[in-house]
């Protein structure tokens, strides 16, 4: 799939030539996976104080795997994914704030997802014609424009105050954890399936060498657009879910470019293009940021620790630390993975 002769000076961060998962994972990989999943599902039992943080992390898993299916695979690095989830969250918020605070979720949720997909396509279509840094720049700008728009139209959006009329799903941590775990699992499963399917193969191929894929007769634009759609739907769902998690929507938690950067950093640390890597990294990094580092360092200094950890991992393990770990387990078992 990758042509060494045309390998450019920039090493692809998703730099691997074979699909991540064979049909069978070896016994070590399987064991680790099973233990992790079991541990995750039973968190309210053995670590009740972590329930809230992991419920929050569940939603972020949705964000980062949605980012991964497009940007992690095709290497079109989107800095604007918080734009997509933010549009969904604000749709929910605007509907309850400006029209009817009692509006039912079965109305607001689909509308929010639709708006997210529309927003993604509006940006994807012109942006996909651009290459590399210009694509990223355009997506970065989309977040800035959206954030500015929130302030300019504060009459409808309540500006930086945010909108608090969104209903909270539940005030009970354990219930919230499962309410968020199920969508996270479903989304991760679906995107993993897509990643391993033919569509996923093509997307990864585009990430390796788009010209070769074109030359092979495939319409890369069509695939990229589909990739965006596969990304935008769960992204929008996640945005609406987050709105109902907090009960309010404001630029800081939902929209600003810092959130996009976090998504990319988490995915890169986990291993771009692997779906499971970013998912695992989301749990680990959010646990570090919102629990462990916060306890030891306080809510301010912890940021230095979190970003430093991310920086070190980015520099020393650009393919992703979890992916590296997975490969290590694969080698251990003698299987190539």
């Amino acid at each position, binding site marked *: 799939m990758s042509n060494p002769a045309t390998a450019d000076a920039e090493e692809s961060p998703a730099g691997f030539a074979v699909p991540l998962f064979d049909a069978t994972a070896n016994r070590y990989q399987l064991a680790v996976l099973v233990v992790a999943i079991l541990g995750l599902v039973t968190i309210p039992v*053995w*670590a*009740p*104080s*972590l329930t*809230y*943080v992991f419920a*929050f992390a569940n939603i972020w898993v949705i964000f980062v795997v949605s980012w991964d299916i497009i940007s992690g695979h095709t290497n079109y690095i989107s800095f604007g994914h918080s734009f997509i989830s933010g549009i969904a969250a604000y749709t929910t918020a605007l509907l309850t704030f400006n029209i009817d605070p009692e509006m039912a979720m079965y109305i607001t949720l689909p509308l929010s997802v639709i708006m997210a997909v529309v927003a993604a396509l509006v940006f994807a279509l012109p942006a996909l014609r651009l290459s590399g840094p210009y694509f990223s720049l355009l997506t970065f700008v989309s977040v800035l424009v959206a954030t500015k728009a929130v*302030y300019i139209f*504060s009459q409808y959006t*309540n*500006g*930086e*105050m*945010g909108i*608090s009329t969104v209903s*909270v799903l539940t*005030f009970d*941590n354990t219930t919230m954890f499962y309410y968020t775990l199920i969508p996270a699992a479903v989304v991760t499963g679906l995107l993993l399936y897509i990643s391993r399917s033919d569509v996923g193969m093509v997307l990864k191929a585009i990430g390796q060498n788009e010209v070769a894929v074109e030359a092979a007769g495939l319409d890369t634009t069509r695939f990229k657009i589909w990739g965006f759609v596969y990304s935008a739907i769960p992204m929008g769902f996640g945005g609406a879910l987050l709105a109902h998690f*907090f*009960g*309010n929507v*404001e630029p*800081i*938690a939902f929209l600003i470019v810092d959130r996009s950067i976090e998504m990319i950093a988490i995915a890169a640390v986990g291993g771009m293009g692997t779906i499971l890597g970013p998912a695992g990294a989301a749990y680990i990094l959010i646990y570090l940021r*919102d*629990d*462990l580092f*916060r*306890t*030891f*360092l*306080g*809510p*301010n200094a912890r940021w230095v620790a979190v970003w430093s950890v991310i920086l070190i991992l980015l520099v020393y393990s650009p393919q992703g630390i979890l992916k590296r770990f997975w490969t290590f387990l694969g080698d251990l078992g003698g299987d190539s993975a």
Partner: protein
Amino acid sequence: MSSDNNTRTSRDDSGSNRRSFLKAAGVGVASTAAFGLSGCLGGDGGGGGGPIKIGHLAPVQHDMGAGSMNSARLLVDHLNEDGGILDREVQLVEGDTQFSPSQANQLVQEMVNEEDVKMISGTFASETMLGIEERVGNLNVPFIDTGSASPQITQNFVGEDYETYKNVFRCNPVNADFQADLLADYAEYLSDTHGWNSFAVVVEDAEWTKPMSERTTAGVQDKGLELALDRRISPDTTDFTPILDEIEESGADAQLKAISHIPGTSMLATWGENEYPFAQEGINVASMSPQYWADTNGGCLYETTAESGAGGTAPVTDKTVPFAEDYQAEFSERPTLPMYMGFGTYDAGYIFKEAVEAVGSADYENDLDDIVAELEATDYTGTAGQIQFYGPDHDYPHDVKHGDDLAPFPVTQWQEEAENDMIEGDGAKVCVWPEAFSTADHQMPPWMA
């Protein structure tokens, strides 16, 4: 000394740590956080003899929040010196909201579910308060707002759904609707003092300033003064020359401003260096910090700001100045004075203590109605004023009553020097209004003469 995370020793002689600082990750000891054994430290359900925990929410990275958190720590010290609440030791659970309502929601969850706090006080920004109010109402924990001014907090929640939100009170500051009316009163004082008859109401475009644009403007005109200009400026304005030019052109004698998000440093520097021919009056949250003179290199000279507690410079009540002095003795890093929110936070603790001691229980799960009734009956001499609350049927139920003998809205001014100057280094802050307890006369910028 105000940096966080260390267990602070108390000031009593036994030498034991009476208060542990629990960063709002939920558990006091780091190891139990890692292993999720938080149940052990939560204390019992509220009936027995364990410590009483109170939570405080504030943005600690910001002077206002830091001052308030420090005040909460001082409060807990003083409460314990006086025997605690219900003869039980008081412990503080600190929550840094970082200006994020989402973060604040998380903190409320932890405080109630894991720390089992009996009361929460805070927050600074109205959007934070509004973002958590639904959760607070549903969790039933007594909540005393000590910093957010939006009238919606009482009107739209306690007023519309008393049963759900009866556990919410505001003791500080006077709400923004009243602040807007009082600013017009202050304009009248300026008119009487300097003969200024023309005012520009220029506020930042935010939720809490809407009353100023509506009511201050009307109030000024009702008093026979001229409203020269009425503007709302974007919170992320960086170049203030255009608006200052506009005010100059309008002929106003003074700008009545209301800014919180806008730090004012650039606005004041531009105003002062160019010697714009009008005065800087109104509300500037950043200016409440004792470090503001240093931050602006003296650019705030002659600026006034309204602030609860008058920055500790004036005897609003006989507790105001002693509290400010105690604070100053205890905390040496910025902010070196409590600022408006700190006064409220300090008062909230004693208000809560009086209420639950009258009931004999802090167990809000079972005794909420009794606790609420006692809180509603509060008549307490605090550091910010005489605290009473409006009743359930008032327009602003559970809001702090304002008035000459109740909670006032004092105005301070930055001057070059003053007699009992509490500001470290250059610059001094005095209280110029109301005259009942003012400490100095209002000064006009010399270039306006």
